[in-house]
């Protein structure tokens, strides 16, 4: 499946390279032809496959939910509306459970995170070679179909959540209150001199824990999906190693895919729940 001319490591590397668009070393704009060229393009390059699939899946999600919202009825709901209502009520319940303040943006944020991440993760269940092979016929050499295995996607969302956290922290508590949370906790002292010494220690601790939130959010999703994808790729290599191992690989892939359904849902749910909890922390005074 990987093509007879490819070795295993080349096959894996091929699968882990994004379709990168950027500036070549010679100054011309274009698509990178291999992983090294993509890396050399530096920051000012863009992953076309990640952008395409995430936009496509996000568009799918928004299209169907918008359709349900446009034809929404308070009477007997149809199938699509029923499905959307089921998800929305599930999200609403989660938000009510974890978020104690009032903010209209949190629930739509949670809904977007959950459904979008779920759909992006779901791409992992498409057999690893199907879409890249079709893309290959169309002349596209690299195609990474699972956007959540691209740290750019997960960090993009985590930074979005982090930005909202900072914004609402400062909006609710004021800049002073936000800085106070960073510097006067967890150690406090009555003596002003001791307090002055404690401030840098507090700041170090609190700043690290603040920064850890978006990073852990992004890396957890990325790590899980990347590892899952990697296992699918490794299983796919077995198809080239004879009939017995190939059949064994088929069974393994089925088993892993079934198990992976749990993981993709769980990761989407964890990301959503943590985002809600972080937003709640941003809104609550200590």
């Amino acid at each position: 499946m990987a093509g007879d001319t490819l070795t295993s490591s080349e096959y894996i590397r091929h699968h882990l390279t994004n379709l990168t668009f950027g500036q070549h070393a010679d100054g011309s704009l274009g698509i990178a032809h291999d992983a090294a060229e993509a890396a050399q393009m530096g920051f000012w390059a863009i992953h076309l496959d990640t952008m395409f699939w995430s936009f496509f899946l996000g568009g799918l999600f928004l299209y169907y939910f918008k359709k349900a919202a446009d034809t929404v009825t308070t009477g007997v709901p149809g199938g699509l509306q029923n499905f959307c209502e089921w998800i929305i009520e599930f999200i609403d319940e989660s938000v009510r459970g974890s978020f104690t303040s009032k903010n209209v943006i949190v629930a739509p944020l949670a809904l977007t995170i959950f459904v979008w991440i779920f759909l992006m993760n779901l791409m992992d269940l498409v057999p690893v070679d199907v879409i890249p092979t079709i893309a290959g016929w169309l002349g596209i050499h690299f195609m990474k179909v699972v956007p959540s295995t691209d740290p750019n996607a997960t960090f993009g969302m985590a930074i979005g959540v982090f930005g909202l956290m900072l914004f609402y922290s400062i909006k609710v508590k004021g800049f002073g209150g936000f800085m106070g949370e960073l510097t006067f906790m967890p150690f406090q002292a009555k003596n002003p001199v001791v307090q002055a010494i404690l401030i840098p220690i507090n700041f170090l601790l609190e700043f690290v824990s603040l920064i850890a939130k978006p990073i852990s959010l992004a890396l957890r999703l990325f790590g899980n999906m990347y590892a899952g994808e990697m296992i699918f790729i490794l299983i796919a290599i077995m198809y080239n190693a004879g009939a017995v191992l190939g059949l064994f690989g088929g069974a393994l892939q089925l088993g892993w895919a079934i198990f992976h359904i749990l993981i993709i849902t769980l990761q989407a749910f964890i990301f959503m729940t943590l985002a809600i909890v972080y937003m709640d922390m941003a809104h609550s005074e200590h």
Partner: protein
Amino acid sequence: MNINLTLFGQLFSFGLFVWFTLKYVWTPMMGALEERRTGIADSLSAAEKGKHDEVLAKQHAKEILLEAKNQASEIKAQGEKRASEIVDEAKDEARTEGERLLTAARAEIDQEVNRAREQLREQVATLAITGAERILQREIDAAAHKDVVDSVANQI
């Protein structure tokens, strides 16, 4: 696995999606859900109220029935009373009418008696005169003794 411009592309699309969801998905859907919830709550309370009303209506109906029964028996009693009154009145009337008829009959009888007596008197007078004439034809001049005969006849 390079961090690059894709990060901002994703950040931007994330923001766009959240905004879109908030504006076009969440708000209308939650509105509909809320509306349905209040609708269901309203119909439940309406059903509860209907049940309550039914109980009240049944009670009311019972009261009306009872009242109607009472009225009916009252009307019946009144009717009976009136009927006996009418019968009594009729008896009284019949009695007075009977008396009146009796009186009238008596008066008529008296009249008849009087008339008969008058006729009798005239006939007796005539008979007496005729008898007297027959007796006196031989001895008395009718013309000469007319005043005597008339005075006698008048005494009857």
